[in-house]
Every structure is written in C-alpha cells, then in structure tokens.
C-alpha cells in the first residue's frame, strides 16, 4: 500500500499532471500487488465516474461563465456595486468582495473569478492607495466566496460522489458565502479606516441610476440558478443550460459583445476545461473504487478515530483532512480520494451529508487560496505577474476569517442547512 502513496506524493511534487499521478499509481499498484486483477476494471470505473447525469451541468456552467467573462458583464456588475458602496471606508475593497460574491453566481470556479474580477479591480484598488499585497490577498480570498455561491464545481462533484442532492448543496452554500462576504467586508472597512485609504467621492443619484440600468441584467443569473433551483423549477443541469441561454442573450443581444466566431472559440475553451476536469473525475472514481475494494477505511481509520467515535470527532477529522489535502491538490481529486475513506463514519454517526458537503467545499475554497500551494495563488501570479511572496503576504487575516467561518458552521449547522431545509429543491 505504501508504494501507492509514495509514488503518488512523489509524482505530485514533481508536477506530473494529476490524471497521470492517479492513473499511473493505480496501474503500478495493481501491476505489482494484485497481478490477478485486470486494469480493465479501471476503464469501467472511469466511465462510471463520467456518466452521472448531475455532471452534465459542469460544462454548461463553465460555458456560461466563459461567455460572461469574455464580455462586459463583470465590468458592469463592478460599476453598479461601486456606485452603491464605493464611498464607504474600504468601499473599493468591499466592492471587490461583493463583485466576487455576485460573480460567483455565474462562475463555478475560483480561478475564473480571480481573472474576471481581479483583472478589473486591482488597478482601481492600487490607484485608490491600497498596497499591492493587500489587493492580491483580497482578490484571491474573495474569489473563494465564488466557490460557495452556486453554481460550484466543488458541490457538484461532492454531490455526485456521495449521492447527495446537488440542488440542496447549492442552496446550502449561499448563507456561508454571504457570511464570509460580510466578515471580509467588516475587515476591509476597519483595515481601510486604520490605513486611511480608499474613499471614493459619493456617486450622485444620476450615476447610481445609470450604473444600475447598465448592470441589473447581470442579476438574472442568481435569479435563474438560485431562484430556479430553490423553487424546484429547475434541476441544476437545467438551470445551467438556461443560464447559458441567458448568457448568450446578455452578451450577444443586450451588450453586443458576442459574435458567432467568439462563441465558437469560447465553446472550444469550455470543452478543454471540461475534459481536464472530467478526466480527473474519471480517474478519481477509479481511485475511490480501489480504496473501497481494498477496504482501506476499515483498516486504518480506527487508528485515527480511536475507540469512541463521536460526530464532532468525525467532523473535525474530515475538515482538517480536506483543509490539508486541498492545499496541495485540486479539490476534485481530494473529494474522490477522501470521501470513500470517511463515508462509513459519516454514515454511522449520522452526520447530515449536506452540512458536511458545505464544510468540505469551504475547506476546498480555503485550501485553494492558502500558501504554500493554493492554486489561486499561482493564478494570481500568472495574471498579475507579481512575485509569490508579495501575493501571499496579506493573506493570513483572510484565512483566519475563513477558519472562523468553518468553526461557526460547525457550531451552528443551521447556517448551512437552513436554506435547503425550506426549499423545494429535489
């Protein structure tokens, strides 16, 4: 068994593509330890991993987000929010938070949000006098909120792996997402007050009206995705398809930034991102099959959990494991590898899978912005061309807030479970 883990960790640190890390280790392990088992089973598992209906919404959400990112929606959204809150202390920083939260309702990944919102906000923030490390810390951490606000690839994959309703998971992410937004904004408010930066002149009533008129169509996305799923009107997949239709209408007809040629190249890019994500999903499924087949949870989980297993103990172990795992690998890989290990305990202690899914997705979001290896850090490096240390210098306060939110959700599970419990989602 140790052969499997050692080869995986070695390959991981040597920057071998994740799909090869998983599939290669699996093939090697079976070749050495279980020569009687035909690896054809892995091919079958890859297909099993790819075919759940709930996954079909992933390419659609990516397509919708790509269309929106290519056009004017992000800019209009930012202008609208800036006109409302820009004059407050920390107004621009709060605008960044709010835009990421709202943009999260279109985009399912943190990296897309770093690119779309960060690209526009960072020059404005710098001009207003915020330090460069603060702007970077702010951008990569507020993009985390997008991972909790539906649609979110984390929720989709978690829902598929653990057979939990994706619609309900989506709804469960909303309040924690808003809570993070609130706490981040409070931090930005006091930070800006203390450092005396970033007050904009108050927008006039005319300016407010104008920016609202330009920006309000973007609010259609939360209406379709959150509203549609909440009311039980759409399944997540249907909501995704309708959101794409709306995105095409918005950028093509209303804002006139989209033409057919552009749409074709966006579709191409969407396909590649989908493939890169889905091959991990397939490989992850093969891996989690092997974990269950070898009965690993039964073997070494008792060592970690000890004799008396309580709900709280399981929750803490799960949260810490995901937190660490997501600092190193893509959340999708983490979910596939870890959830079969924990699932017997989650089931036997009767933990609400929706509540746990919210915590897991939150950890994935935190991990993706946490040094040393959070992927958002590298995205920010790539987009803004700043050195690594500068990107991470101001991240600790944000990460502390995110950890605080984790604790709050563990203490008050209703933050996650309230909305799904009163919704009509299936």
């Amino acid at each position, binding site marked *: 068994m140790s052969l499997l883990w050692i080869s995986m960790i070695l390959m991981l640190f040597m920057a071998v593509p994740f799909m090869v890390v998983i599939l290669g280790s699996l093939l090697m392990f079976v070749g050495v330890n279980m020569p009687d088992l035909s690896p054809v089973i892995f091919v079958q598992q890859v297909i099993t991993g790819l075919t759940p209906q709930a996954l079909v919404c992933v390419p659609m959400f990516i397509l919708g987000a790509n269309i929106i990112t290519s056009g004017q929606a992000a800019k209009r959204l930012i202008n609208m929010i800036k006109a409302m809150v820009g004059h407050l202390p920390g107004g621009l920083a709060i605008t960044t938070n709010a835009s990421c939260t709202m943009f999260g309702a279109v985009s399912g990944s943190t990296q897309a949000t770093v690119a779309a919102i960060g690209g526009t906000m960072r020059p404005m923030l710098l001009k207003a006098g915020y330090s460069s490390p603060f702007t970077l810390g702010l951008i990569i951490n507020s993009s985390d909120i997008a991972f909790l606000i539906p649609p979110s690839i984390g929720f989709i994959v978690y829902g598929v792996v653990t057979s939990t309703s994706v619609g309900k998971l989506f709804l469960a992410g909303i309040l924690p997402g808003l809570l993070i937004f609130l706490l981040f904004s409070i931090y930005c408010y006091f930070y800006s007050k203390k450092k005396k930066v970033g007050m904009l002149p108050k927008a006039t009533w005319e300016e407010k009206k104008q920016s609202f008129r330009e920006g309000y169509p973007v609010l259609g996305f939360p209406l379709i995705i959150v509203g549609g799923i909440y009311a039980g009107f759409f399944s997540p997949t249907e909501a995704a398809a309708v959101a794409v239709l709306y995105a095409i209408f918005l950028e093509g007809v209303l804002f006139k930034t989209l033409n057919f040629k552009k749409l074709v190249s966006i579709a191409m890019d969407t*396909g590649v991102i989908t493939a*890169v994500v889905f091959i991990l999903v397939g490989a992850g499924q093969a891996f989690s099959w092997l974990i269950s087949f070898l009965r690993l949870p039964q073997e070494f989980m008792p060592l970690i959990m000890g004799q008396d297993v309580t709900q709280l103990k399981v929750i803490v172990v799960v949260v810490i494991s995901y937190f660490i795992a997501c600092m190193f690998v893509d959340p999708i890989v983490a979910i596939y590898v870890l959830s079969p290990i924990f699932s017997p305990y989650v089931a036997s202690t009767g933990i609400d899978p929706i509540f746990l899914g919210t915590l897991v997705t939150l950890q994935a979001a935190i991990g993706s912005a946490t040094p040393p290896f959070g992927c958002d850090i*590298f995205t920010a490096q790539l987009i803004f061309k700043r050195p690594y240390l500068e990107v991470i210098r101001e991240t600790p306060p944000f990460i502390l807030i995110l950890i605080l939110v984790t604790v709050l959700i563990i203490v008050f599970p209703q933050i996650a479970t309230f909305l799904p419990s009163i919704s009509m989602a299936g």
Partner: protein
Amino acid sequence: MEGENKVVKVLNFFETSCITFCIFALFITLIINVIARTFFTSIYFAEEVSEFLTIFITFVGVSYAARKGRHIRMGALIDLAPKSVEKCIEYFICVASAITMFTMAYFSAEYVLMVFTRAQSSSALRLPFWIFVIIIPLGFFSAGIQYTLTIIKNIKEKGDDIWISPEVTSEYSDDVIEY
C-alpha cells in the same frame, strides 16, 4: 517536417471541431429537453445523448490538453528548481505520462473489444455500446503520442526552453515581468 505539420493540422482540426460541436450539441440537447419537459414530456434519449457527448468531449480533450500542456498539475516546486533540474524532471514527467497513457489505451481497447464481442447496446436508443466508448482508447493513445513527441521536442530543441507539451513551453517562466 512538412508531413508532420500536416498531420498536426489535421489532428488539430479534428479535435477542435469535435470539441466545439459536442459542446454546442450538449447545450442544444439540454435546452430542448428543458422545453420539452416543461410543455410536454422529457425526451427519452436526452440523457443518453448527453452521456455520449460527455465521454466524447473528455477523451478528445485529454489528447488536445496534452498537446497544449493544459492538464492540471502542481508546478510550484519544480519552478523553484534550476533549469537543468527542471528539464530532467520534465523528461521524467513525459515518460511517466506516456507510459500511463499507452497502458490505459491498451486496457481501454481491451474493454472496447469486450463490449463489442458481447454486443452490448445502450438502454434508450438501442445503439451498440462500443460507439460510446471507442473514443477512449483513441484519446488515451493520442495523448500518449503527444507526451512522446514532447520528449523528442525537448531532445531536439537546444536552448533554455523547457517544453511541457509539443507546442507549449514551461508555463510560469515569464513570471518576473514587472507590472
């Protein structure tokens, strides 16, 4: 070289048009199904079509992403390494990836053959199931070829560039440009 370029062009055309077409087809299938479900009844084969498209996009994309160096990996540590070490590691990555891809291609071909000889058919449209999965060995095989080409590229090209795919050099190499 001429012939090689032509092959790459044809492959590129096939891959891009396949992926683009499948994404549009998926979108249209889902939208039509939403309309059909709202006003009439769900289309009975919509699920199967989307399953087929998903598999197709994934495995055509696996090869395309290998060619463009788009597969997700954690490049943080080897970026810190000196260029010569990085190049050595890149050889290792390509060899490991190529072997893995070719092995997966072999076993998926075995799987497709199994499906074919058992004459399995899909549940809704009653189509032969091998049509759904034939792309899997092809995708893995083509990805294996891409990693092999990357090795050749790294040997052939002198100079500092490290190729992570036949067409793309090391991703973070321009990071220190001032803003």
